[in-house]
């Protein structure tokens, strides 16, 4: 007897047991879920029953599938690991669920959510295998597309991040380059003024050149300080004052003048750094140059006080000397004071000059938030 004949015989036996009137058999024949039954007692486990849904899904006629092992559904792109897993489940008599790529009669493929389960006799022996097939191609396609989309998105994000990182590096390099040029040019301007100062002999011209040099130095100190801190947006006024005072006292060579500092740490916007630095430099220079004429010192030691505090909505910057006082000084509202007035306007700051008895007190109120309340 040929295998096909045996299978047909087995199919007839099965049909005889579950004839017309068996509601379970009717349900399986008519359900939209593709189903097969194979004969475990025969060599190579051939199909002995396939419902209409299975034939519709695979494109085969019934006589083309009865008597054959299910492996005709496999093809070149079916995953060998899935095939091996199915083989092992059948050999071990285990049930299993697996998604596997199958082929129709016309060669087209579909994703099959296969469920495979042994059917045992009363004695516990495996007599049949039952298989159900569900076409899940749509779901698989969506999964694959989703995976593709995610990969594309990840690649796009990676490319964008690389672009931004490069842009940041370029920006940092550019900032360093500009910073470097600004500092070198300020150094160059200082050198020009110093060189000319060495050439001229007229004391008035020398004094003007010195004044300009001090102003350039104040701006130079701002730039040295600005890029020293991690935050290039903020400017530490107290640190600047310490540098400035050290420089100006060193340049003045006046051992008969002492400086007293009382500096609270105060940060201002970097954009205000240069104008404020010029105001402080001008006022401090004024005190050094005019409050203590050497002929009026008579062995006395003069003092210049610089204080910075925060007072309500203002920063309070005080420069006080105990010298000869405004009425008696040689200063006559010169260029330096014009600079102070103009820059205070720009900074929306309020300068206030009062007698300190003896000497002069200048207080500049700089609004913390840029405006007076």
């Amino acid at each position: 007897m040929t295998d096909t004949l045996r299978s047909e015989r087995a199919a007839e036996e099965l049909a005889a047991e579950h004839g017309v009137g068996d509601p379970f058999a009717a349900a399986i024949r008519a359900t939209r879920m593709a189903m097969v039954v194979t004969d475990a007692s025969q060599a190579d486990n051939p199909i002995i029953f396939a419902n209409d849904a299975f034939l519709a899904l695979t494109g085969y006629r019934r006589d083309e599938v009865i008597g054959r092992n299910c492996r005709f559904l496999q093809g070149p792109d079916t995953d060998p690991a899935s095939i091996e897993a199915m083989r092992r489940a059948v050999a071990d008599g285990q049930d299993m669920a697996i998604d596997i790529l199958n082929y129709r009669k016309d060669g087209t493929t579909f994703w099959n959510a296969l469920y495979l389960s042994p059917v045992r006799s009363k004695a516990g022996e495996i007599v049949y295998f039952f298989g159900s097939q569900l076409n899940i191609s749509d779901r698989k396609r969506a999964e694959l597309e989703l995976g593709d989309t995610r990969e594309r998105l990840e690649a796009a994000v990676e490319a964008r991040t690389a672009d931004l990182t490069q842009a940041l590096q370029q920006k940092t390099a550019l900032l360093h380059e500009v910073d470097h040029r600004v500092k070198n040019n300020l150094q160059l301007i200082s050198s020009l003024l110093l060189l000319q100062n060495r050439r001229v002999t007229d004391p008035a011209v020398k004094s003007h050149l010195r004044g300009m040099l001090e102003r350039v130095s104040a701006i130079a100190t701002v730039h040295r300080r600005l890029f020293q801190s991690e935050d290039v947006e903020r400017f530490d006024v107290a640190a600047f004052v310490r540098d400035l005072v050290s420089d100006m006292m060193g340049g003045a060579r006046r051992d008969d003048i002492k400086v007293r500092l009382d500096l609270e740490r105060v940060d201002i916007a970097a954009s205000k750094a240069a104008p404020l630095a010029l105001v402080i430099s001008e006022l401090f220079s004024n005190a050094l140059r005019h409050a203590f004429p050497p002929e009026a010192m008579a062995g006395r030691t003069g003092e210049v006080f610089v204080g910075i505090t925060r007072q309500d909505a203002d920063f309070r910057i005080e420069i006080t000397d105990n010298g000869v006082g405004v009425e008696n000084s040689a200063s006559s509202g010169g260029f330096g004071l014009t600079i102070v007035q103009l820059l205070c306007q720009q900074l929306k700051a309020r300068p206030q000059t009062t007698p300190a008895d003896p000497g002069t007190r200048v207080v500049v109120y700089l609004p913390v938030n840029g405006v007076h309340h």
Partner: protein
Amino acid sequence: MDERPLDVLIVEDEVLLATELEFLVGEVGCNAVGLAMSSDEAVAMANDLRPDLALVDVHLRDGPTGVEVVRKIHDDCGGVALFMTANVKRLPDDFAGACGVIGKPYSEHGVKTALAYLTICLREGRAPSPPPIGLELSPAYAERWGVTALLRAVPHAV
């Protein structure tokens, strides 16, 4: 104690800066022995003139070669170099063997004070005090000249 003035080599490609620096060097009692504008010139002059101190800008006529110049002066000539640069943050951690750095833009007073201070350090082999404002010593020289110990003893000195 050796009281002769320090021989100072200036390595700077901006001629106006270099000229003004020569004046400042002279005003603090040092002896400006030469001016180099490129790395080759600088190394050759350091070899020939054996200066006590070389003031070296990082950017020279042939590019950012000042760091290599300092390393050669330190390794090959056994000389002491001091950086003068606007790019203090970009110097190597070991200062390439230099004793320190003056950041640009420097002031006339800052340079003079630094040179007077280094003259004492080089003559006596140790520092009289913590460095003045505007001068930063390299870790190796701060150790060698006893500044590290000085700062440890007087933590608020700076």
